[in-house]
Each structure stands twice: as C-alpha cells, then as structure tokens.
C-alpha cells in the first residue's frame, strides 16, 4: 500500500504519503505517524525504497521516499498475489455453483 503510493506518485515525503492514502480511501485509512514512519523505515531497511532529504515545493526541508528496482519487483509480485487472492475470493463469494 505504502509501496504502491510511492510507486505511483514518485518521490514523496511522509506527510504527503499519509495525505494521499487518506484521500484515495476517502478518509477510511487514517495512518498515524507511529505506524507510517516505522513502516517506511522497514521498507527502506529491506531495500524496497530509498530516501533522502530534499526541499518541498513550499521550500521546506523534507525526507523524500522513492521506490527502488527491488521495490518495483516486490510490488509487482504482491499485486499479482493480491489479484489472485481477490479472484479466488470473488469466485467463492459470487459463484452460485
């Protein structure tokens, strides 16, 4: 999820990731900092994203996260797995047979 956001929107800082998630889920997903930043750190430690300090469009220093090649592979794999799962679930729930 975090990975997808970062992948979709390119280099983002932490707040914009949280804001984006909240926006796309129409407020259903509210992530606090205690969840968001350790999560980002974990992804970084796994080598799926990388981060650096940079300047925002409002001219503030922020840490920007970007996806790595390994991250993209991981994302693709997870997306495929999710699709497979949802297909199975969909079939189970909607197939009358």
């Amino acid at each position, binding site marked *: 999820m975090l990975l997808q956001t970062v992948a979709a929107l390119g280099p983002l800082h932490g*707040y914009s990731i949280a804001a984006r998630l909240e926006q796309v889920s129409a407020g259903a997903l509210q992530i*606090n900092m205690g969840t968001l*930043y*350790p999560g980002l750190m*974990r992804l970084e430690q796994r080598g799926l994203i990388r981060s650096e300090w940079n300047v925002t469009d409002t001219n503030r220093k922020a840490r920007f996260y970007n996806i790595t090649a390994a991250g993209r592979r*991981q994302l693709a794999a997870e997306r495929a797995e999710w699709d497979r799962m949802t297909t199975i679930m969909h079939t189970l729930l909607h197939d009358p047979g």
Partner: protein
Amino acid sequence: MRMASLREWISRLWGTLRPGRDDRDLEQELRLHLELAAEDAVRAGCAPGQARPAARTHAGGVAQAMEALRDQRGLPWLNDRARDIRYALRQVRRNPAFSAIAIATLALGIGGITAMFSAFDTILIRPLPYPNADRLVMIWDELNRERLSKSFPAPAEWLEWRRQNTVFTDIAATQPADATLSGDSEPEQVPARKATANLWGVLGVTPLVGRVFTEEEDVNGVRVLLISHGLWQRRYGGSPDVVGRKITVNDNVYEVIGVMPRDFYFLPARDIDIWMPASFSASMRRNFSWHDSQVVARLKPGMTLKRAQESMAALSLQVTAKDFRGPHPVVVTPLREEIAGKTHTALVVLLCASAALLLIACVNLANLLLSRGEVRRREVAVRAALGAGRQRLIAQFLTESLVLAGLGSATGLAFAVPALRFLETIVPETMGTVRLSLDWRVLAFSAGAAIAATLIFGLVPALRGTRFAPQDGLRDGGRGATGARSHWFQHSLIVIETALAVVLLTSGGLLLGTFQHLRHTDLGMRSEQLLTFEAPLFRYPDFDKRVAFVNAELEKIRAIPGVVNAGASSQLPLRPNNTHATFYLLAGQSRNSIPGQVALMRVVTLDYLPTIGARLREGRFFEISDRPSTSPAAIVNETFADRHFPGRSALGERFQYGQLNEKGHWYTIVGVVKEIREVAMGEAPRSAVYRLHDQTDQVGSLPSGVVVRTTVEPVSIVSAIRQAIWSVDKDQPVWHVQTIDDIVDRQLSTATQSTTLLGAFALLALLLASLGLYGVLSYAVTQRTNEIGLRLALGATSGDILRSFGKRGMALTLAGLVIGLVLAAIAARSMTALLYGYRPDYFPTAAAVAVILMAVAALACFVPARRASRIDPMTALQRG
C-alpha cells in the same frame, strides 16, 4: 521476501551498532509531518489556535512515534545490551582501583589458562602428521627380569611378529644409524635412521619429491636413501634434481630417491635427516638378543589396543619360547603417548593448575563483587523503583561482569604471548618443532573461559545484588544490614580459594623437592668443565689403526692449552633409554643364569675414567700395564658388584661377556667404581662394565664419544679441538659437542619448566587468596564500623576486637588449609610420573605450606583487624 527480510535484519543490526539516522533526523521528519498536518487543518477551516492540537490528535504523538522508530531502527534487545555495555564501561572508568584489580586478576587467570591450553592443544590434541595417527602403536619387549618395562625389540622378533600377527595391518621397524655426508661439500655428520621399507606404508606418509624404497631394495641392501626436507634445503638448496643424485654416506655411495615432507618427523627424534633401508643382516634376522629396534604398527580397523596387546603378548611368548633366555611378553603403547612422553603429565598438571588459578581469580572477584553489591544497593534500589525489572537488573550486572572478563581476557592474551614463547621450549624433542600461536581454537577457548569465568564470578553477585524489595534498599540507606547468609557464602568462597591455593602450593612444593633431588643426583663424576662430543669411527674398522687413531687424537687434544685430560668411551654418559646391554656369565655359574644377567657395556680408553672424575670404591683404574691380552681387565660399577658380590670384594672375580663360549675372553675385575650416571636423570641405575679399548678387539663397540676436562670455559676451545682432530685426520667428522652440564639441563628441562610454572601459579594463587581474605575482612570492618564502635563504647578492649577479627580470618584459613591438604595428597598421586619415580616426603612439604599460608593469612587478617581495633567509638557511632 526472505532476502529482503534478511537485509532488514542486517540493516537493523547495523543500526544498533551505529545509528545512521540519529534521533534528531527522525524527530525533524515527524515535526514536519505535524506542521504540514496543521497547515492542512487550517486550510480545511480549522481555527489557527486549534490546528496544532487537531493535527496531533490526527497523526499521533511524536514521543510514541519516536519510540516505534527507534525500535524499528535497531534491535531493541541489542540496544539494551549496548546500553548496558556503555554503562558497564562507565562503571569501569568510575572505579579505576576496583577495575584494575579485577582486570589484572582475570588477566592472570585467563592468560595463564589460554597459554596452557595452546600448548596442551598443540602437543596433545592436534593430529600427528600421519593419517589416522590414533591407530598407530609402538610395540616393546617386556623384559621384567631386568626391571625394564619397555625394551627395544630385536629385528628377528619383528620378522616373526610381522609374519604371524593377526591384529595389525602391518608392522615396521627402525634401527639406529650413523651418517656422515662427504664428497659433495664439507663432511657433515647428520642424524640418521634405518627403516624397513614398509615404514612409510604403516605411517601413511608419502615423500614430497621422489619415492620411498621398496621391500626388494630393503632386503637386498640396495644403497638408496630418503632425505629430510631440512637437509634438502640446507645442503642441496632445495633443488628438485636432488632425486637421483649420488651422495657419499659413511664412505659408501647412495642414491637419493626421495625427500620427506617438511612437517614429517618420526621417533626417536624430530631432526632425523637421512632414512635408509634397514637391510637387516642374516645374523640379525636369526638372533633374538639384538635388541636395538623400535617397532611401530597400525591397528587393523575395529581392533582395540587392549585386544592387540593380549594377542601380541601371547604371540611373543610363543615366538620367544625357544629363546635360550626364556619367553617374554610385549607391551603395546599408543604412538602419541611415546611422542609426548613425560610432557603429557606435565601439561595435564599445568593445565589443571592454571584452571585452579583461574578459579581462584573468579572466586576472589565474586567476593569483591558481593562486597560491592552491598555498596550499590542504593543504586539498584533506585533503578528498581523506577521500574527496571529484576531480569533487566541481572542482565545489567552480568553485562558488567562480562565487560570486566572481556577486558581481563584481552589483557590476558597480551600476557599469553610471551608465555607461549616460554612454553615452546617444553615441546618434547620427539616431536616436530612447533610454534605455539593464538589461533582461532585458542581464541575460542579463551572466549569460552571468559564467559565461564563471568558466570562463575558474576552470577551469584548478580542474583544477590538484585534480590530485595526496593523500599528496603532505599530505607536503610545502604548501611550494613546484611544477613548471616551472605557472610556464610563469602566465607565459603574464602575457604575454597584457600584450599585451591594450598593444593597448588603443595604440588609446587613436591615438584620443587623432586627437582632439587634430581639436581643433586650424584652423577658419579665431576660434571663442571667437562666437554663431550662424538667422533664416529666407522672409517676405522681395523683394530690396530683405530687404536692408533684414537690415541693420537686424544694426545693432540691434551696438548691444547686449557685441557687437563681427555678420554673416549663407546657411549657417553647420561644417555636416555639406554637399554642396549650385553649378557654376561660369571666364572662358576651355570648357563641358566645367563637370561637374567645383562650389563651396559662401555669400551673406554686409559684416561676416560680419570677424565670424567669417576671415583673408585675399590681396586684401581686401567693402567698402562694393561697390555693387549686374551685375559683382559675390567672395571664394574657398584650395582654390578653389589648384585653378585654383596658384602665382599669383587676384585679378582672373573666373567665372560658378549661371546659366552669357549672362544670368549675371561675378564678379571680390577676395580669397582661408584655409580656413573650412564642412563638419563631419574632412571634407575643399571649394571655396567668398563673395559679397555687398547687391550682387546672383542666386542664391536667403538670409543667414539670423547670427553675433555678443561680448566677454561669448555666452549672456548671447541674450534681448537676440531683443528687438533683434523690435524690427525682431515676427514674426521665431529658432532654433538656439548658439556655434561648442558646434557643434564636438557634432561631436566621438562622438570625445570613444570617446576617454574607450577611455582609461579602457586605463588599467584597464594597472593590472590590472601588478597581475597584481606578484601573480605577489610570490607567486614567497614560494614561493621557501627557495631565495633558500640562494642568499644560498651567496654570491649581494642585487643578483643583485634582477636575477634583475627580469629575469624584464621579460622577460615585453617579450614581451607585442611581441605587443601587432603586434595593435595590426592593430586600428588596423579603427578607421580612428573616426580621421576622419586617419592618426595609429603609431610615436610605440607608443613612448610601450612606455615607459609598461616603467616601470609595472619598478615592479611592483621591489617584490617588492627584497623577495626583502632576505630574511635565516638566517630563510629556519630557516623552511624
């Protein structure tokens, strides 16, 4: 996924060791998050005053997020340890005196045991340079009659054993040999050995270059030989075309067919340079009395040493059934035991001693920590009150101990390096040269020792130091309210370390006694300023020429300034394992007596016995009037005379030896000498016969060992002696130049070193034990200042206080002494091999140890007890 999560762990481990993103970095990110959230809130219509709290409610607190981030950044458990270690290091710095004592004590203990382990590992555990070396055994004749449990077998026996045995894959034999290299460059005498062709198969060794000799070459006496790696490098410059080269050995031409690997060695010495075919003569193959071989065999798979021993003993009885001396069994011993020799026991004893020393160090430290634990009760109580769990506190205490042990261990390794250089000299001569080093095995052992030490000295103080309700610790303000239990424990520690110190002191004392005894063994000669060397006589097979050469060479040596006298003998004194003996028959004895009668045989020149400073019990030395004759004169030693002529004169008695038939000469005893030490130090004396070289050429021993009595430093005339000999014969080799004192020193080197080391361990143990006693009493005085003050105020005299503390210290010492003496008596029994058959008196040693220990303990008690007795009651009570 797996890879990714592995990467996460590595990154977290790294993050623990040195955080890449520090707390400030993380916090800055979180603050920005809040600011942006607040701005968004304002934009969404929130009042500016409420934007911030709203953002915080929405995004969560910075503190919680920081905590979660820190946990994610590193490994929380490791973080705790890292913090403990930092804290422990701070403690070390804060208490420099305590830390220095603790680290020095541990350094001695761990350094000592590490060095000893390195020697033990290299000499006794590491594989020998033969594949499956634990399957290799040596076979010895067991000629009990002569009080020798292990004698060299005869080649004839080897032949039969090899043919008939059922327990070995093969049996090989080696025989002594001399080798003088000449021709290609200056003459050089090198250590050599004859071997049967199957030796290499039995040992499982192949040459580095070339090949080994074949059974046919061995049996047919083909002149081929193998050279050592050392000789190859030294004399032939490591040239690969040495194989096939013809070299001159003992004036015969041999072909070099192979070079042995660099690390190859085999009994009886590490430095054998030439291996040639044994090529046993026809008479040796038949004669059961030619005992000069060493026999090595490889056990068949699945065969045990015990079964091989039984089988071989039975076989030997059968093989020697027809021997005129009667049948005898054999002994089978593991090769490693033969190679390690006495060093084995020495190492075991010293390793135990170093372990005891480490244990004393640990006990001492445990006591110190227990005392300090009392002092730290307040600190612990505060931390407990602030919520540190007991486990966490124990971990903290153990970490502190581990840090001490780690520092001690590192310092100890620094001590160990020079100790290793010293221990290298303890490596037996039967073994390859080794360089002891702190390799990974030794380092792992050392780390293990440090951890074990930590648990021994740190666990109890950690458990005790953390066991109480926090409010108690806070309330009594760290004043001595320690229960009797704690004293009881500390007291038993004192008893344990005293007992261990007593064991070490007593063992060291016994060893010292033995060593003194060996040092003062009567050699039967005057050993100072007595130079010896070998001048082999294989180039003089002709009797008359040999006599002429030997007399001329000795004459030239006597002419050197600083030389008093010179003589020669077929065997120099102090030869270890000297079992090469000859049968004899006294006049009037029946031939049945022959089997039990052997004596060492020495062919000597006229001046030999006076030169070495032999002493006569009766009769005379050889004289110029002992002309060549068929009824020659002989001189025997006291052991010989006492055996056959107890209580009466042996002079004029006649005997035959060597050739025990009508053709053999009858020798007449003209003198009896006091025992000359022909065998090694510590071995039982043996019958010996001396006869005059000039008088008759009967038994083939040549007087190649020369002794020179000097008035100057013997080493200073060595080159003059060489020149003197070469002026008679320019090709005469001279080797093994050494003084009798050198030989004695070398033979006693294991004893010297073990005595020195054990002595050092014992003194350190005494020091540590007395320090321990001092520490505990001294601490008790500090703890009980109030009580003492009260007692003094109530009318106790300072003498009472002195006595009360002194009594307690001495009672502990006495308990340790008694336990220690009992343990020492048991330990002494296991050391008998180191004692060279000498039984030192246990009681004088024990008494001396008791006196020394009590004196040192009294001093250790007196100082704190006196301090207690001088306490001013007023000050003490006020302070309370």
